[in-house]
């Protein structure tokens, strides 16, 4: 696996990324930006994302995976966490890959909140040709409750009592990370069933083995109003999306990963 780690973006808010050059002929002109989940899921994602990037590169695609501001090795801290900021970061990553490699076809692929950011970004831009949305967070308020439930479970075993409310101070953090009131407010406002924009191109929706986005009537209606060519994939290796937050570091959904890579190569090359 060939990978090139580097920093890019504005001097005051440098973002960390890892570029994977395509194997074989370099002139494919197509690439994929991988969008991480956040928090604990981000901590447990490297193995999956490294393999995903390597397989995409092996298929002939340029690949960039990167950290949002305040995440991973990028500049900043949880105080900078925000949906608006991360949408700007995703756009910066797209520009970095497109301009750096001279690409004319771009795909976005994300997991959990990364998938939500991918969808929102794809809806705002005209140059995103394909999207992979893997267990996207459709509703930010439900997502917060989901995280708090896992948080209570993990701290409960140690006899500690985390704050129950999602607003007005999460003094005990959420699974090791501080959620500012501003960030909680932005998450609370996130609802892809109402805001999904005018996405176009090809879309692969992957969901874990419980009723998910594909089963959400409002979300399906939203997608039906767009021009996306939708393909759907069920991930039978993971019982539900929260596994991204709790799984072992080594666990990689290899079968679904292979299918996602094949799909990207099919629609982008």
């Amino acid at each position, binding site marked *: 696996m060939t990978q090139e*780690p580097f920093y890019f973006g504005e001097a005051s808010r440098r973002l960390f990324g890892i570029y994977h050059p395509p194997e074989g002929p370099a002139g494919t002109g197509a690439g994929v930006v991988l969008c991480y989940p956040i928090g604990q899921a981000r901590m447990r994602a490297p193995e999956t994302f*490294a393999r995903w990037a390597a397989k995409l590169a092996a298929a002939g695609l340029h690949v960039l995976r990167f950290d949002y501001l305040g995440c991973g090795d990028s500049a900043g801290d949880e105080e900078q966490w925000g949906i608006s900021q991360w949408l700007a970061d995703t756009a910066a990553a797209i520009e970095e890959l497109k301009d750096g490699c001279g690409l004319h076809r771009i795909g976005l692929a994300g997991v959990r909140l990364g998938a939500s950011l991918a969808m929102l970004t794809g809806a705002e831009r005209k140059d995103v040709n394909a999207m992979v949305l893997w267990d996207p967070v459709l509703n930010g308020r439900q997502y917060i409750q989901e995280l708090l439930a896992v948080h209570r479970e993990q*701290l409960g075993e140690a*006899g*500690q*009592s985390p704050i129950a409310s999602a607003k007005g101070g999460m003094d005990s953090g959420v*699974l090791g990370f501080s959620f500012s009131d501003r960030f909680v407010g932005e998450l609370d406002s996130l609802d892809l069933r109402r805001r999904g924009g005018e996405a176009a191109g090809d879309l692969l929706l992957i969901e874990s083995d419980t009723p998910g986005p594909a089963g959400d009537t409002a979300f399906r209606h939203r997608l039906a109003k767009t021009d996306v060519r939708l393909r759907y994939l069920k991930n039978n290796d993971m019982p539900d999306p929260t596994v991204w937050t709790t799984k072992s570091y080594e666990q990689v959904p290899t079968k679904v990963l292979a299918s996602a890579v094949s799909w990207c190569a099919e629609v982008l090359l």
Partner: protein
Amino acid sequence: MNETAVLFGQDSPLLGIVGRPDCPTEPGDLPAVVFLNAGAVPRTGPNRVYVKLARKLTADGFLTLRFDFAGTGDSPGRPGETSLKATCLAGTHEAIDFMATTLDADRIILVGICLGADLALETAYEDPRVVGVVMINGYFLPDNADPEATAYLAKASGGRGYRKSMFSLRSWKRLLTGQTDLRSLWRFLVAKLKGPSARERDVLKTMASREKWLRLTERGVDLLLVYSERDRSLDTYMMTLKGVVESLASTGRITVSIVEGADHLFTMPSHRDTFMHRVRQWVVENRSA
């Protein structure tokens, strides 16, 4: 922020992030700080604690490196790896070599959590360039540990968690609704009531290598042990290493710090902040090591 991504080491290179102080000191003025993976947790550390701590230390004037062992985080695995420990030790030596040859940093403070703590101690013993070691929630059990004594440790540790839980309504609710691991709790209670056998007691006392710790203090290496109050590693320390540390108190080289209420990975931000503050304070105070 002055950080650079680097690839170093042989064959499949290891990926790391170097943090440079804005006002660089002369080479040799301050030791550099190298962070070792906490088991399978990537180089950012549990809940990004290595990133936060590295940046604070860089602001204090220290050169820092956080990196991934082969097969962890973003560093690819290497064919022919013999064992996890051997792989990690090799990676640590490569990191120290990289700091010395590329960045003129030949005095190193190692920081490690859990498995990283054990590796930091082992590396310090082998490599004279290590002048300080920060070991967080480490176990330091020998590779060929006596199985009976190890089994007793496994049953008898975790006491702090159970004792604190006695005063937690939430824990009682978990017990009464069948969510508590009753088998673990039973084994703990039996182990505590019975206590270790005479043989187990003797073996436990010899599990920590006094010779190793003595050699390090004689070499002038400063050692900081940090434990989370609720972590099993603290119980293990009490039963194995505490006697050794106390016997070496006169050297003035070993400091033990316990973060009250904290779990293994300092999940609560307040505990994380306390832990980082103590480590940072210790590193700054020992800069002339």
